[in-house]
């Protein structure tokens, strides 16, 4: 292996320069304001966690984890998501607090990237977890809050697709009869390979009715009326429950006034096993990648010995900023250039302006490399130069 260049960063790591920082920060503040106003309390967790606990419980693929060893030889991971650490906290540091818990975070996450150079391996995510509440109201609250958050960011157009993994699982199992065989079909849906799904369905020894039921699953996307279509495919036991969940959820979302942003998509399989109920993904204009996602994960908490139903969402801040497509201008700043004879005068003036809320740079003339470049970088430049004690003059 060759030694890296002095200025090089590990693959997928990025510097954030002032203009981008400023833009990201503004968006972050808008999101935080909304999330805070819904009563979610922010928490932070460490960047490093144990591989054997958080690492293996996480929904993130093993090959995407950054792993390292501590002095005792334990394998550690750089936090790949926030849901799992929050589940750990809910089951340990907050174990005496009664459910439901409403927690929020904004935090850098680390996921190793194999493909292509420069894809971010560290990115900021903002999100919430509603732990210990299994009601449709909780699902609805989380989705409505995600919608309000995306709206507050300034996204002109966005949509949220909602699915229910319980329905998919129940239908597949009902038709093919075994978890193994259902898993093959589930994987095609997870890989978004509908052609492979259809080919596989046709290769199975099924009655034409059952074949049709599996193929019609792919058509279950659109408005609320698709729930009625879904009922005709399977409506017993868990599937019936899932559809009941979705009906109630839709009512909740109507109540919040966000159902215009919602589309039903019962093919949405975002993970092979992690989610247990309602799942959803958010999309905005102008960017080809989903901005946010979330869902119900009722089996995670029991891995930390405090079984609880839970749901939440995460928004990729970097993608959201990209979708907004605008860089904010850096704030206007004043520069006071002084020579040492008039330093005290300059300091006093800077103090006065700062108290008025202005951003003021105080710069000794002797330290300036190029006066032209300096004066070009500020809206207003004042000079306190020379021996005379007269007033300042603007450039």
């Amino acid at each position, binding site marked *: 292996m060759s030694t890296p260049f002095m200025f090089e960063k590990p693959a997928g790591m990025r510097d954030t320069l002032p203009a981008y920082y400023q833009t990201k920060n503004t968006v972050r503040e808008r999101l935080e304001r909304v999330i805070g106003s819904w009563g979610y309390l922010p928490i932070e967790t460490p960047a490093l966690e144990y591989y054997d606990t958080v690492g293996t419980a996480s929904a993130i693929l093993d090959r995407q984890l950054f792993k390292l060893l501590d002095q005792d030889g334990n394998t550690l991971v750089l936090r790949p998501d926030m849901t799992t650490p929050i589940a750990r906290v809910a089951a340990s540091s907050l174990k005496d607090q009664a459910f439901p818990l409403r927690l929020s975070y904004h935090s850098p996450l680390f996921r190793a990237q194999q493909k292509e150079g420069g894809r971010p391996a560290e990115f900021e995510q903002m999100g919430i977890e509603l732990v210990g509440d299994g009601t449709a109201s909780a699902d609805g609250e989380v989705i409505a809050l995600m919608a309000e958050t995306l709206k507050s960011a300034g996204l002109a157009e966005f949509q949220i697709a909602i699915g229910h993994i319980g329905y998919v699982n129940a239908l597949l199992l009902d038709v093919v009869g075994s978890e193994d065989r259902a898993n093959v079909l589930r994987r095609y849906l997870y890989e978004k390979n509908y*052609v492979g799904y259809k080919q596989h369905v046709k290769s199975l020894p099924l009655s034409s009715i059952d074949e049709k039921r599996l193929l019609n699953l792919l058509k279950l996307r*659109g408005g609320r009326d698709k729930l009625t279509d879904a009922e005709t495919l399977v409506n017993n036991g868990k599937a019936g429950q899932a559809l009941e969940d979705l009906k109630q959820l839709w009512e909740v979302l109507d109540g919040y006034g966000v159902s215009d942003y919602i589309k039903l998509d019962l093919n949405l399989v975002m993970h092979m096993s992690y989610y247990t109920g309602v799942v959803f993904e958010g*999309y*905005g204009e102008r960017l*080809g*990648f989903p901005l946010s996602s979330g869902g119900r994960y009722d089996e995670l908490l029991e891995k930390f010995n405090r079984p609880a139903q839970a749901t939440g969402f995460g928004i990729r801040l970097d993608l959201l900023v990209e979708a907004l497509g605008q860089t904010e201008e850096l704030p206007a700043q004043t520069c006071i250039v002084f020579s040492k004879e008039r330093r005290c005068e300059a300091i006093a003036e800077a103090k006065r302006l700062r108290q008025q809320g202005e951003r003021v740079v105080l710069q000794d003339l002797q330290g300036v490399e190029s006066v032209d470049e300096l004066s070009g970088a500020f809206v207003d430049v004042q000079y306190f130069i020379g021996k005379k004690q007269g007033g300042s003059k603007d450039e």
Partner: protein
Amino acid sequence: MNEPLTVAMPKGRIFDEAVDLLREAGFPLPPEFDDSRKLIVDAPEADLRFILAKPMDVPTYVEHGVADLGVAGKDTMIEEERDVYEILDLNISECYMAVAALPGYQKSDINPKVASKYPNLATKYFKEQGEQVEIIKLNGSIELAPLVGLADRIVDIVSTGRTLRENGLVELETIVPITSRLIVNPVSYRMKDGRIDDLVERLSKVVEVEES
């Protein structure tokens, strides 16, 4: 909402065949597209725009969303593993992926080598076979590799088998059948669902008629 749907396609035969399918599906496309050197071709009557790309790049344009849809061979889909929806088998440009070698080829005991334009696909295939090989990536004229001794076998697309025959190669195994697929960007699939569903619906009727 007035922006046309954008479709990324490889130039040449696949473009012609896909355009024929779209015409059959009732999209009012001009009988001929004039300048073949253009990279972006508009068809305002059909509310479509075509991006003409290298076959292997089509899934990339679609994954990043600069194209809402794409027509990509299953070979590139397997090779590139892009995060896109594979919605419809268009059943055009049928061919298959195969392993080929010089006649009388015998498995080498020492470091067998395989040349291919599809290193991921080839790696996956030989892994599944439990066979230890070295994969050498080439960008074209794969048939050359066994002739000059770069590799003892190749993995490549075969449609009629003519190229193999002309270079004195024989086919050893078939890996996977290949056809062109209609692929869709996951965000476009939601944000423009009405228009995309309509296009998919109309195309699938045409494709399924030809199938039966």
